[in-house]
């Protein structure tokens, strides 16, 4: 079955130490070159980079829309754009940020690059499917842009019926675009689950699987179970517009609340698609920079799965005021509180990992600290919203807006940036300017809080979300928030600036600049085209910082006849306990 299992036989295997090269002449970027080699590549690393480029682009597009929305809210009445344009802008901001940026951010961009490296695999299980996933993403994005130019969409990213089935504009093509993007997401999920099951290197048992892989695994499960329901739901909205099928449209005999059930069956789990991979990033970074074994490995690994599962049971908390049965509201509210448990488990274990570690406060860790603070606020306000009585008051106010921005931006975007900084040397072979990185992190943190903390206050005072006009009482809050959003934007621009700058003349990165024990750091920087020149053998867990680095650089010994660089032959018994150098 699994390759990993084969090492549990009693036979002795010959292993050999492979020390990674710092800056090898040949690597994945220069072995095959030219535009065509990129467009047709099946290399997970290049596909990851293409995803990275695409999501960065859409992050900036979505960001500009956000700034336009915030600028419009500077004054209570019209500031500089029409109300209708405003509606389209916040819709596109939401839809782009969620479907085109956040969902693929960590899994499809960073995950694609790192997952096979962490598994000791040459590629993902289905490389061509991986490329197809990228092109589906681009196609969907293209259709979305087409819709924007051909009438626009003003439904909000949630496409609630009956508004979405009756309003004008390009809703039909837009839902089709999201449908296609959904398939991109599904294919990534299919690929990752299979890869984690089938492509692990010898010795990489489930209890040695890096927590980033666990995070991606849980995410992929959500992707394959939830996304198809979104696909069919959006298809039904499209059919509702074309044929008037009367499933969701009350005018035709349908039930609009049913749409909300189906939509949130996807979209609540989807908020975990947007955070659980971030949890994985946190676990990796926190151990590397505190030089300590992760505290509560299984607790963290299994709580990801628990979150993935419980995430499917709580969707009705978005519908407390929709007219759903009060019995359902009660059950959903109760189940919502349960999500706090596995999330809390994670937070405590991470904190415990830091405890008495030898902490090296490099920029990736700094971003993670930002994550801790912001995600904590985001999560706890979620619990507040999960209580029915409070939510009746807070639903569809800026309180909700602040809540999900704390989890999505404060949580996931921070984790994404942390991961990007952490793996940047491996991906590009360059180091960025560390001082700038820390300053940018500070600016983002401050900008974020200035933007979103006032939103909690005005939300609880009754400022509704998605409104073009507001009463004067809220103006100071809105203005502070708008100022904050520009600070935040500046921070992101800075990150973009120094990361891109590092590509041109940044200091060359060594193979393992952070001294990590994880597998992706035990190969060359930049990695070879097929990742490993040898078949890696895993004997220690990825967080065994108490063991010397040499024990992490092992591979199956090549037959003596072919003269790959040999250093010393090591022999290892099946249970991986004894290692003796010859």
């Amino acid at each position, binding site marked *: *079955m699994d390759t990993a299992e084969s090492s549990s036989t009693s036979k002795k295997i010959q292993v050999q130490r492979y020390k990674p090269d710092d800056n090898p002449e040949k690597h994945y970027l220069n072995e095959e070159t030219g535009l065509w080699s990129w467009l047709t590549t099946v290399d997970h690393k290049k596909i990851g980079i293409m995803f990275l480029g695409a999501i960065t682009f859409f992050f900036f597009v979505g960001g500009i829309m956000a700034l336009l929305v915030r600028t419009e809210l500077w004054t209570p009445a019209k500031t500089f754009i029409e109300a209708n344009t405003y509606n389209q802008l916040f819709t596109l901001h939401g839809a782009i940020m969620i479907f085109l940026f956040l969902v693929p951010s960590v899994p499809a961009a960073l995950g694609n690059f790192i997952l096979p490296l962490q598994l000791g695999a040459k590629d993902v299980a289905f490389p061509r499917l991986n490329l197809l996933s990228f092109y589906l993403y681009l196609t969907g994005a293209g259709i979305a842009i087409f819709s924007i130019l051909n009438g626009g969409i003003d439904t909000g990213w949630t496409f609630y019926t009956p508004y979405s089935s009756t309003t004008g504009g390009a809703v039909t093509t837009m839902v089709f675009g999201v449908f296609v993007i959904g398939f991109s997401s599904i294919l990534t999920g299919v690929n990752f689950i299979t890869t984690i*099951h089938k492509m692990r290197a010898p010795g990489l048992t489930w209890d040695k699987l890096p927590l980033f892989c666990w995070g991606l695994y849980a995410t992929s499960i959500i992707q394959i*179970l939830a996304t198809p*329901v979104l696909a069919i739901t959006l298809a039904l909205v499209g059919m509702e517009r074309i044929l008037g099928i009367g499933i969701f449209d*009350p005018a035709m005999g349908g*039930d*609009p*609340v*049913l749409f909300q*059930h*189906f939509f949130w*069956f996807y979209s609540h789990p989807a908020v975990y698609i947007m955070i659980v991979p971030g949890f994985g990033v946190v676990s990796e970074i926190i151990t590397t920079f505190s030089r300590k074994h992760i505290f509560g490995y299984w607790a963290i690994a299994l709580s990801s799965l628990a979150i993935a599962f419980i995430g*499917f*049971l709580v*969707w*009705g908390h978005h*519908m407390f005021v*929709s*007219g*759903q*049965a*009060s*019995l*359902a509201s009660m*059950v*959903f509210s109760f189940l919502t509180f349960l999500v706090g448990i596995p999330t809390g488990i994670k937070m405590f274990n991470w904190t415990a990992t830091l405890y008495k570690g030898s902490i090296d406060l490099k920029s990736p860790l700094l971003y993670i600290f930002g994550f801790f603070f912001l995600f904590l606020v985001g999560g706890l306000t979620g619990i507040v919203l999960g209580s029915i009585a409070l939510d009746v008051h807070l639903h569809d106010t800026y309180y909700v807006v602040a809540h999900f921005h704390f989890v999505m931006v404060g949580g996931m975007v921070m984790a994404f940036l942390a991961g990007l900084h952490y793996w940047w040397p491996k991906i590009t072979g360059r180091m960025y300017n560390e001082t700038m990185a820390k300053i940018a992190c500070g600016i983002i943190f401050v900008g974020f809080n200035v933007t979103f903390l006032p939103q909690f206050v005005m939300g609880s005072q009754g400022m509704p979300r998605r409104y073009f006009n507001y009463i004067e009482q809220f103006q100071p809050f809105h203005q502070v928030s708008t100022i904050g959003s520009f600070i935040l934007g500046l921070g992101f621009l800075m990150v973009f600036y120094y990361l891109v700058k590092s590509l041109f003349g940044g200091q060359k990165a060594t193979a393992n600049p952070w001294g990590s024990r994880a597998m992706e750091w035990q190969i060359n920087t930049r990695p070879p085209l097929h990742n490993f020149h040898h078949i890696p053998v895993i004997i220690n867990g990825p967080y065994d910082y108490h063991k010397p680095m040499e024990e992490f650089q092992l591979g199956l010994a090549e037959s003596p006849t072919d003269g790959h660089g040999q250093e010393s032959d090591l022999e290892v018994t099946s249970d991986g306990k004894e290692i003796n150098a010859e």
Partner: protein
Amino acid sequence: MSGHHISTDKTLLGVAAALLMLTILTVGVNYIHIPAPWNIITAMGIAVVKAGLVALFFMNLYWDERFNSILLVAGLAFFGLLVGLTLLDTLFRANVMPAF
């Protein structure tokens, strides 16, 4: 893991025959008008048996890695969640179609 299972003609034809019989059965039962809800329960019961036969012997789950069966069951279980929690609302609403 074991190698690939090769089904004999006997198994395959046997399963197909069983499926055929069950199809005839379910149509036949339909004509004797069992009172609700037992009519739908029998019909679904027969369908589940048929689907089970296809999954176990045509799709080879009977001989296959257990994980693939787990996948199938998980898919059905989450479908169950979708239906179950939705019914928790739709069956217990004060007004079937909320007014607005």
